[in-house]
């Protein structure tokens, strides 16, 4: 079975699950009563376009219980919130999805860079985010433990919006200082952080000398020149670099190792079949843009815990061709949607 057939099979299974009264959640069952029965019309991934775009207000305004699949009823769940949002955040509930995503990701990172049993340090957004548990799970899967330094991206976003750049800088220093203390006093070999914090940390400690051999990075825009700077000058071409694109709603899209031909342009591949990324024409979102063309990122998440069709991310990216080991499209040079036209507040996350 090829990946397309696998994806379609998975889709049909998920549709059956979420739109059947025995297993589905109140939200989708009610939606079905007012719209159509997806079990009859959604057969292939192309058919997903028959759904309207998933509205993020649904994750803000509705109580989390509406998303509990009947089959999970009675099981306590985790409530995860999205990254740097201010105001009422989007919330996604879950049970095991993050473990599935990060166990799979563990197979994509090398033992040379993240030695099994070697401690990890996470310097980034913890709090109500999925990432905190996910990183700890990733470390645990590899027989390791993890230290944590928190960063509150919502506070940073407020500071930057209010033009309190000095305070934002102080806060970043405060976060990096704490990480530097851990690195000076504990043996750590794997690091998760955001690119900006990684840079700030490198100004305080010699990252390689402190024992770090692999860096798993995610969060903000990483354009090719910036990636090159991180690889060549911050990590000095001797620490493994694993950029990822992900969020609470999708999970984790890993990148393929960079080759010289990539010129530091990173392409990410969604964790299909659990999530599918499409780069769409923002004016006509049914249309997927041509390869190597910019478009808005559309996410469809399909697990038994959560179904979210056609969610328009606040990101834009280049659509890229499949590349081994992935047999589906990738997204590259992800940046905030409209970044070329508007100034977007990204902060350090």
């Amino acid at each position, binding site marked *: 079975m090829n990946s397309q057939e696998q994806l379609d099979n998975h889709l049909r299974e998920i549709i059956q699950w979420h739109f059947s009264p025995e297993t589905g959640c109140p939200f989708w069952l009610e939606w079905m009563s007012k719209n159509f029965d997806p079990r009859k019309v959604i057969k292939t991934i192309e058919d997903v376009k028959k759904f309207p775009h998933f509205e993020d207000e649904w994750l803000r305004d509705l109580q989390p219980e509406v998303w509990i699949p009947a089959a999970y009823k009675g099981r306590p769940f985790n409530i995860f919130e999205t990254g740097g949002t201010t105001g009422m955040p989007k919330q996604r509930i879950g049970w095991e999805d993050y473990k599935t995503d990060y166990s799979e990701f563990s197979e994509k990172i090398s033992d040379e860079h993240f030695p099994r049993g070697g401690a990890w340090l996470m310097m980034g957004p913890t709090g109500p985010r999925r990432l905190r548990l996910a990183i700890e799970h990733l470390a645990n899967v590899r027989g390791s433990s993890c230290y944590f330094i928190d960063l509150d991206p919502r506070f940073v976003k407020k500071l930057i919006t209010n033009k309190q750049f000095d305070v934002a800088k102080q806060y970043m220093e405060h976060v990096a200082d704490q990480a530097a203390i851990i690195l000076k006093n504990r043996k750590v070999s794997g690091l998760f952080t955001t690119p900006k914090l990684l840079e700030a940390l490198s*100004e305080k400690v010699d990252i390689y000398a402190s024992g770090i051999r692999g860096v798993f990075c995610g969060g903000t825009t990483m354009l090719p*020149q*910036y990636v090159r*700077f991180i690889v060549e*000058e*911050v990590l000095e071409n001797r620490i493994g670099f694993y950029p990822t694109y992900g969020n609470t709603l999708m999970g984790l899209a890993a990148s393929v190792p960079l080759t010289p031909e990539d010129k530091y342009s990173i392409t990410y591949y969604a964790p299909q079949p659990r999530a599918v990324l499409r780069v769409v024409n923002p004016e006509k979102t049914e249309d997927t843009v041509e390869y190597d063309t910019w478009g808005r990122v559309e996410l469809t998440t399909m697990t038994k815990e959560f179904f979210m069709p056609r969610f328009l991310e606040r990101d834009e990216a280049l659509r890229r061709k499949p590349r081994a080991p992935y047999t589906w499209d990738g997204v590259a040079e992800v940046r905030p949607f409209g970044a070329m036209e508007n100034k977007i507040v990204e902060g350090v996350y």
Partner: protein
Amino acid sequence: MSLPHLPALRKGKPYESLDKTEVKDHRTGEILATVSQVGAGILRKDLSRIGEARDDLRKFTVEQLIAISAKAGDLFLNAELTFGDQGHLQTPQQYTETLSRTSGLPHVMVKRNMAKIADALFNMRTVLNGLTRGLDMSIIDIGYGEQAGCPVSYYPTTNALGLVMPSNSPAVNSLWLPAIALKTPVIIKPGREEPWTPYRLIQAFIAAGAPASAFGFYPTDHEGSGEVMKTCGRALIFGDANTVAQYKDNPKFECHGPGFSKVLIGEDEIERWPEFIDVIAGSIADNGGRSCINASAVVVAKYGREIAEALAKKLGPITPLPSDDPNAKLSGFANVKMAEFIDSAIESGLKEPGAEDVTAKYRQGSRKTELGGGVYMQPTIVRCDSFKHTMSNREYLCPYASVVEVPQSEMLEQIGPSLVVTAITKDKKFIDQLLESPLIERLNIGPISTMKISWNQPHEGNMFEFLYKRRSIDFA
């Protein structure tokens, strides 16, 4: 041959970034070169080790660096120099043409600016003599010595001089030139439309024997510019009044904002005003009216209407000419929005009662005009009833001046801070008042153009005092 590419220079070493901008002909949009852009992280990285670059300069004596500067001046003016990293060379004529095409300056003005820069390099000894008031330069080499019978010791205030350069006038580059002879590496963020002059100067210095490591050329974004300002121990700031206001009380920064330079005619000389019209018109319009030392106000004891009329009659008919025309007097605007902004600011100011655009009747067409796809601002002389009028003390990147009648006894109370004042008077009492005034940075007594500067007298800040501080010293 391929398009020229200007790399960043990281302590003199070319660095080709994956991020490049295009520099275009301001009229046709033709791409003339690409320029590598670097981020703030690279600047921080390099600046953390800038002490090494200073060590490289310290291997030379000031005397040797003065000789290198003079040789660099000759090369800058006459030689074919490295132009980017794609094997291109640049002749002085190509430099003139390229700069003209991107900045809008006509060739004749580029050449004048070039000569001014080269002069600063040729006269580096005179410049340093003026800045240090005759200090024996070996004292800088050794760190201490004796001057006028007193022990003196100077120490550097910084390991690098940061520069966030404007695009409007190449001659501003002459401001940083003494830093090299004073053994201070430069970290230059070039203006977006004018990377040419700093790049050519750097190549001239290197060809003349200066250590390449002393030169940082970092085309960068807003964050990177901030890093240059913040991380270099000393930095020059160029910008409008608002930008400069943020930095003016901080000793780390030397600010170069609007000059609000002026010509004053005292009561004793006012009857002779027609004799001074040429000097005043030159003060307003030379170099396309783009310099901070261009006069932006003419303050006279009487005959305001007549003087404004005479200036308007002389400057009003000036129209744009092709950039290679030796009679060209106006600069094009690489940034068309800037011309639009200036034009609308003048128009809106004129709506306030008490001001008249006297040039309007002498001008061909509208103030903002076009020639061959380029946008130009034709001269504007505004007669204002008093200094209370909005338009009386304005400075724009084009030939613009107000003419205001003020009794001599009130002039100094009203003119406000002025980079250059040319005071046409022989009145001893008035001259004494002018000499006492803290508002004037450079004072010309008599009919001297505000555009005239002296190499042995700094007119805005003192680079030596900026880069070195005196300490008390004793040896057992």
